[in-house]
């Protein structure tokens, strides 16, 4: 297992190197870093020239690539073009916020999906099974941005009719955020709606997969043996059936994380949450290629990391892959 991890990490380094090439030359080939600034009337030719000098834009692309990689390694992506602010402080803050959102949303989705999947698989063709099947079809069909807006409408209506501020519909903390324990309560009140909106698709997908593998497992010989031994039903279902049914779920969660990450772009824009998604949205709106490339690099690294973690979890769940 440690050897596998070491191998994979070594391999990841090469993939990341390839990613720098693809990202830099890909972005350079479709965009002009100064495109937006050139068309602005209140930027003088002198300051444009200063920008060109600072980012070495008159050198050949290969040399520019070298400077970009150097900046990335030594100066944490350097500064953005328009405002000359360092990119990393904002990006790292955004990263923390997004990881927090994704982890909470995925945990919520997994817990709920396990409950639904186990129940539906154990009681196949019951009312619960049919009900959750229809719900999961709806979960697949609902656009998360629309669901987020509907949640916002409902939250505001709830506040207007009852006067109770149960949840917030934008931001990550209140302006006058309380301290201590109440800070976390305030944070959760801000996170509830984004988590709900972000986890719909995951809940639908995971619960369906778990249901299918539960049905497969529940008729297996070892489950029958466990029952024959006289184990209690919860023990049979949770200890014997669920543990084996959960193995494919690990892969599905790993694959799905990319989709969830895409979802944060939309959810964070709607709920004005200062995360990776909003960072990317803003970088695209101002067409700041250096911020865009930094974002892509961080996303690529995250993807590699997630894949590594998925493999390790898979090894923990399924002893056969531990070699």
């Amino acid at each position: 297992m440690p050897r596998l991890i070491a191998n994979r990490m070594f391999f990841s380094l090469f993939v990341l190197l390839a990613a720098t090439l693809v990202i830099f030359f890909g972005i350079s080939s479709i965009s002009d870093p100064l495109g937006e600034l050139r068309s602005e009337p209140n930027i003088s030719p002198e300051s444009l020239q200063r920008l060109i000098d600072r980012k070495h834009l008159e050198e050949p692309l290969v040399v520019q690539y070298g400077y970009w990689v150097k900046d990335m390694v030594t100066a944490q992506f350097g500064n953005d073009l328009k405002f000359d602010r360092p990119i990393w402080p904002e990006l790292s803050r955004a990263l923390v916020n997004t990881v927090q959102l994704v982890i909470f949303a995925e945990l919520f989705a997994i817990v709920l999906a396990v409950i639904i999947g186990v129940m539906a698989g154990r009681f196949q063709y019951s009312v619960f099974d049919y009900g959750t099947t229809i719900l999961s079809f709806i979960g697949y069909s609902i656009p998360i941005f629309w669901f987020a807006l509907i949640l916002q409408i409902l939250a505001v209506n709830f506040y207007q009719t009852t006067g109770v501020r149960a949840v917030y519909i934008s931001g990550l903390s209140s302006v006058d955020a309380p301290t201590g324990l109440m800070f976390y309560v305030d944070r959760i009140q801000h996170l509830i709606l984004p988590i709900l909106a972000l986890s719909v698709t995951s809940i639908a997908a995971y619960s369906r997969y778990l249901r299918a593998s539960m049905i497969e497992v529940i008729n297996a010989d070892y489950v029958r043996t466990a029952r024959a031994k006289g184990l209690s039903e919860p023990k049979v279902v949770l200890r014997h059936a669920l543990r084996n049914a959960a193995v494919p779920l690990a892969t599905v969660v790993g694959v799905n994380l990319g989709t969830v990450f895409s979802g944060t772009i939309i959810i964070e824009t709607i709920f004005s949450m200062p995360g990776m998604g909003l960072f990317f949205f803003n970088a695209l709106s101002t067409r700041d290629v250096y911020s865009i490339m930094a974002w892509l690099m961080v996303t690529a690294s995250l993807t590699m990391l997630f894949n590594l973690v998925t493999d390790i979890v898979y090894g923990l769940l399924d002893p056969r892959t531990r070699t």
Partner: protein
Amino acid sequence: MTCSTSAAARREGSMIRHRSRLWRFLSRFARHRVAVVSLVILLAIMMAALNAGGISPYNYDSMNLPAANLGPTMEGRHYFGTDKLGRDYFTRVFYGTRTTIFVAMTVALLSTLIGTIVGAAAGYFGGRIDNLLMRLTDLVIILPGLALLMILTTFLGEGTPMQVAILLSSLLWTLVARIVRAQFLSLRRREFVEAAILAGASPWRVIWRHILPNTLGPIIVNATLTISTAILIESALSFIGFGVKPPTPALGQLISQGRGSMQTQWWLVTFPGLMIVTICLTINFIGDGLRDALDARHARRS
């Protein structure tokens, strides 16, 4: 004489077999009642969307300020209300549906075409070609799709429906490719394929006449479900302003325009969204029915 009658008989025989196969498929599909109902609803929506100009007395862009911000009402046939310029929202939603369905159908066709070619080549020829094509597929799968689409539409896009469809297809072919490859790998070793190869059939003929017809089921199911995926992605893109651009209405774009006043004019956001949910839901149910009818269990769930 005898020769021609036997040929005719053979032709007739194949026709009967063909019809009975189709008949079996239809009767199996008809047994999935939810799928049949879904198909009827979807066809009705598509007919209405195609005929968007004829289903209401209004134009999608004709303003009428005295009738601005009306809620849904039977009066004046503003079933979905009007927006802040007094444009009939029912008409606008169906025009938006037309754009959205056009994009999604194009994506389903294009991505299925690309994916089938890639998957067939990889599965049939194997070896180095397979390796190369599958690494390419893995690469596309691992890319952050939505982000990439946003970048491409920012720097390259004019936001026409066709362009959005092409960009989406360039990312959504991977699943078909994997399914077709898996099918080809298993069919490639079957006796009837080896017999055809031994009889001297060219690779093209073996792929086209012998293997591909046997993989149609999963391909069709997958193409159907791709329509729903494409609708969701295109709507999300259009919603955040990176997809189909005004003045062409699309459902996601209508939601984005109605968002500013959604707390008071709830219908501006609700109806286009319900339209998306309805279309995707019916497509998913139809896909489920097709999967049962075509016996394509191994095609993806969604």
